[in-house]
């Protein structure tokens, strides 16, 4: 009963926020709706025993990514309302809605058809058991860390390289070119 209640509330948060993102005229409102969706997804993560990922979801997505979005919106001064009535291609929205409903229907059909095909296999396990055989309160983090640092340690190291490259590339992209550095280009 409790799980059903949590699911319904979190699903309402997720879907309401998602619709808010795509219908709000103002980019700031879209970013705030995105926060609502991300919190709803974090609640669903907790309901599915992914406690560590829920914490990372709140810290990284809601704390860093959306704040970055808001910074860019405010700094660039693009925080004025967009005229959503303006529609350059008349058929764009009906086609987009049709494709969206079609993809949703296809995925739901695939999920429902394969509902009985997903059988539990012997996996690594979501929790690490305590020495006495009981459940650890931080078993999820331990299980995740054991998997991450044993079988995926190379990928984990590569993500650090990826982050460094992203930071350096962004600094190069975003800085203002000095005078005299742009000989031959138009500005």
């Amino acid at each position, binding site marked *: 009963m409790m799980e059903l209640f949590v699911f319904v509330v979190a699903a309402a948060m*997720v879907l309401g926020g998602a619709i808010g993102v795509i219908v709000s005229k103002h980019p700031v409102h879209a970013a705030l709706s995105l926060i609502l969706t991300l919190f709803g997804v974090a609640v669903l993560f907790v309901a599915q025993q992914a406690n560590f990922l829920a914490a990372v979801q709140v810290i990284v997505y809601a704390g860093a990514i959306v704040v970055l979005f808001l910074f860019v919106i405010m700094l660039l001064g693009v925080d004025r309302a967009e005229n959503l009535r303006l529609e350059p291609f008349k058929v764009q929205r009906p086609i987009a809605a049709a494709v969206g409903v079609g993809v949703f229907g296809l995925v739901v059909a695939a999920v429902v058809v394969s509902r009985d095909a997903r059988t539990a296999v012997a996996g690594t396990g979501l929790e690490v058991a305590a020495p006495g055989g009981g459940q650890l309160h931080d078993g999820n983090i331990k299980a995740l860390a054991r*998997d991450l640092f044993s079988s995926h340690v190379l990928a984990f190291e590569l993500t650090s390289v990826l982050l460094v490259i992203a930071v350096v*590339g962004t600094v190069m992209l975003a800085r203002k070119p000095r005078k005299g550095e742009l000989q031959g280009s138009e500005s």
Partner: protein
Amino acid sequence: MIASLHPTTTWYLILAAALFSIGMVGVMVRRNPLVLFMCVELMLNAVNLTFVAMARKLGDIGGQTTVFFVMVVAAAEVVVGLGIIVAILRRRPNATTDDLAELKG
């Protein structure tokens, strides 16, 4: 009746499908590049939700590890994408995604 209902994996997968579809419609409809990025984030979150639901269903922690990597790549993607958007919008304010078609050579 209602008390016996229990959210199964199928519910989570259908919710993720709905979230993904909404994000996809947003990418196709919206014209502000920033809002476009937010819709891409919606789609990434839908896929993350699918991974976590299947990790629980199959009892395999590998799904959660994948979500961890998806989050790292999404953070890097947002940083680079916003850098590009800042560089474009600084030169031409109020550029929409249609104007960005002029980027092609």
